[in-house]
């Protein structure tokens, strides 16, 4: 990859705002997953895409400075969370991967349905982010 010195002021400035809005939209998709289209998979892809936008506007090194995370570990942590929600159902004498939900009165949100499926989704989300970013970073690092 040849380093071309260009002046990316417009791209970088737009990225500064747009990447945050994409990140917010990915969180929205993640939380919408239960009753609306969305969920862990597309939310994770969207988060990864906001990081890819950063990669396009800046370079690999800058993004690694912004997020000093090894994305392989992110995927591993996600898998661990997903599996432990499955194993956690043994503690209550239920079958593997059976999920529960209940309604709670939270201080700000009012009556909210909290499901353990969300925990499983967090695992999926982290795996997707980790795998996508690992693929893109490994390809990008090759000269």
């Amino acid at each position, binding site marked *: 990859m040849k380093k071309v010195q260009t002046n990316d002021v417009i791209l970088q400035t737009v990225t500064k705002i747009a990447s945050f809005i994409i990140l917010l*939209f990915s969180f929205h998709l993640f939380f919408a997953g239960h009753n609306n289209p969305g969920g862990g998979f597309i939310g994770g892809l969207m988060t990864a895409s906001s990081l890819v936008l950063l990669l396009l506007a800046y370079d690999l090194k800058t993004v690694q400075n912004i*997020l000093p995370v090894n994305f392989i570990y992110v995927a591993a942590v996600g898998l661990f969370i997903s599996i432990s929600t499955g194993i956690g159902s043994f503690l209550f004498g239920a079958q593997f991967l059976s999920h529960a939900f209940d309604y709670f009165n939270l201080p700000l949100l*009012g009556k909210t349905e909290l499901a353990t499926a969300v925990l499983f989704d967090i695992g999926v989300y982290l795996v997707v982010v980790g795998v996508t970013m690992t693929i893109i970073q490994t390809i990008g690092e090759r000269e």
Partner: protein
Amino acid sequence: MALQILLNFILALCWMFLNNDYTAAAFVVGYVIGLFSLFLMRRFFRRRFYLINIWAIIKLLFIFIKELVLANVSVLKTILSPRLKNKPGIFAFKTDLKADWEITTLANLITLTPGTLVVDISDDRSILYIHAVDIDDAEKAISDIRISFEEAIKEVSR
């Protein structure tokens, strides 16, 4: 800092539009989620994560309240003592603060400290002339100001 707060505000508004929920609760939830994404990308900004600055401002506010109480108690002591044995005088205090609001805040805080009062600021804005009720411990007053106020103000503007 202002840029980060503005961005967080915009993100909270975006969250309200995405959820089609125009209540204060949705705004707060969006603000918290925006705060989280700002925290995730905090190295993206040249300044540090803005909650640290807000914490420094709150600390400065508490210092201000504490000094206000102490100043009034010490003046009360001076007034009520039967014999005036204090030695008034003026000393110079050299400051490293640069911005206008920093110097103004420092001057106002010094005025509210027990027994000191800012009289004038030198033309190059590096020296504050302070009138003290009791000049005997001017050195102590200088070091007190430097430790408590100047550091707290620097912490806010960093």
